[in-house]
């Protein structure tokens, strides 16, 4: 049962990810991305990570993809025709990543012992809710990476404000 769900979600994710780059109409690309985000959230649900699934939809589909669509509609590009001179670079990157992926999957298949995390997670899930577990781990074990991430986000935010502000003062003078 779980295997069937995984195959369905994985299949749709691969298909829609390819469609995102293959489709010529940017709005259609955005819609395939929307479908892909939903299926990634579905994968999280099958792994009992409900919190991640909900946050995935809220952040990626609710905010980021809406902004993409916003820009696409503002520029009003009906068809994107600027595919040129990308092929050598794309082929190089694609082959590299494909080789890496293949090597990782092949290595993974031969190590038969299960990942140590999965059993751990199940026990924690039973004790407390999924959300509480994530919160606790984030603010104890992974406190430093969490704070670094928030610092990076703060810097990005200040950068955006500085870029936007400069324009206004220049116009005022």
């Amino acid at each position, binding site marked *: 049962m779980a295997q069937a769900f995984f195959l369905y979600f994985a299949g749709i994710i691969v298909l829609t990810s390819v469609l995102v780059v293959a489709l010529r109409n940017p709005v259609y690309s955005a819609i395939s991305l929307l479908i892909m985000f939903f299926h990634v959230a579905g994968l999280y649900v099958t792994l009992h990570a409900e919190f991640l699934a909900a946050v995935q939809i809220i952040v990626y589909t609710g*905010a980021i993809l809406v902004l993409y669509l916003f820009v696409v509609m503002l520029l009003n590009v009906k068809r994107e025709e600027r595919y040129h001179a990308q092929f050598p670079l794309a082929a190089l990157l694609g082959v590299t990543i494909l080789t890496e992926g293949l090597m990782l999957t092949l290595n993974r298949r031969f190590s038969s012992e299960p990942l140590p995390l999965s059993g751990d997670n199940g026990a924690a899930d039973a004790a407390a809710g999924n959300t509480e577990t994530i919160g606790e781990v984030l603010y104890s074990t992974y406190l430093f990476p969490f704070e670094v991430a928030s610092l990076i986000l703060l810097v990005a935010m200040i950068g955006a404000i500085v870029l936007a502000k400069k324009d206004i003062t220049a116009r005022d003078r």
Partner: protein
Amino acid sequence: MAELGLKLAFSVAQIAVVMGIVMLTVMFLTLAERKVLGWMQDRMGPMEVGPYGVLQPIADGLKLFFKEDIVPAGANKFLFSLAPILALVPALIGFAVIPFGPNQTVELFGRQFQPFVISDINIGILYILAFTSIGAYGIILGGWASNSKYSLLGGLRSAAQVISYELNVGLAIVGVLLLAGSLSLVKITEAQAGGFWHWYIFAFPFPQIFAFVVYVISAVAETNRVPFDLPEAESELVAGFFTEYSGMRFAFFFLAEYANMILVSCIAAALFLGGWNAPYPGTLLPENLAWVEGIVWFAAKVYFFLFLFFWLRATLPRLRYDQLMRFGWKVMLPIALGNILVTAIAAYLFPKG
């Protein structure tokens, strides 16, 4: 297998009942809105169909059903048909986690069922937030696919507005979640039992009254209602994002707007006003009829909010677009963030139970 079939049959029956009630409420709301607006403006409202115009929704429904379905020339047919569905489905799907009555179980054919909530999942409120964020796609894509300037402008306005105010909705809710310590709407409602002074709008460590005000204003903005109805401002954009829609597709957008109104009213009632809990401790009716009282209180709270929507529409003029954005980001957002800070400190100083 029989077990699974029974569970499925019960869930389907529950979903059918909830959908039926929501659809009936939407029908009734279209009439109520026109009547309330009429009375507030010293008019009679619709009076032609049936006694006092009570059959008006049926006439409107029939009209929409038999109207010609027009797809404008140059429109993107696929997205044009998809958009109304994308708008309606998220509005209806959120009702799956709303607790309509006391959290009790009934035994049916040797199995336990919860009759008043379709599904009590442990991320209830996040589930609703996730799906309401999808509703914006219907509006944006509908505006874009119509191939009309007015629709596109309406869709763009809507995109910016929904993103801005969704953030405020999310942050306003966080205070309640901090106090309740759960994301499940059933658990949040249960934590507010025992009198109105336990409702989170008045609750002890830090009353969520600011969060409540922010939530209600943002909810009005998120459902694109007056005074935040810029995506469909009649005097500027004809009808905004659904200018080109007619017949059943128009009806879908209409249904989505009203279903969204009911949904945000249900969330406000469940999170801030104690859900199905009565404002006094315990119940007046005997034990086995207590659920009737719970449902009546829940319905009363939801209808209060729905009345508030009409009241605002009759009272306030529409905001200008820059005012809307400035108000969302420079007034509501700081209040919501400050509320989270103070609530977190209060919850830390006075841990519950």
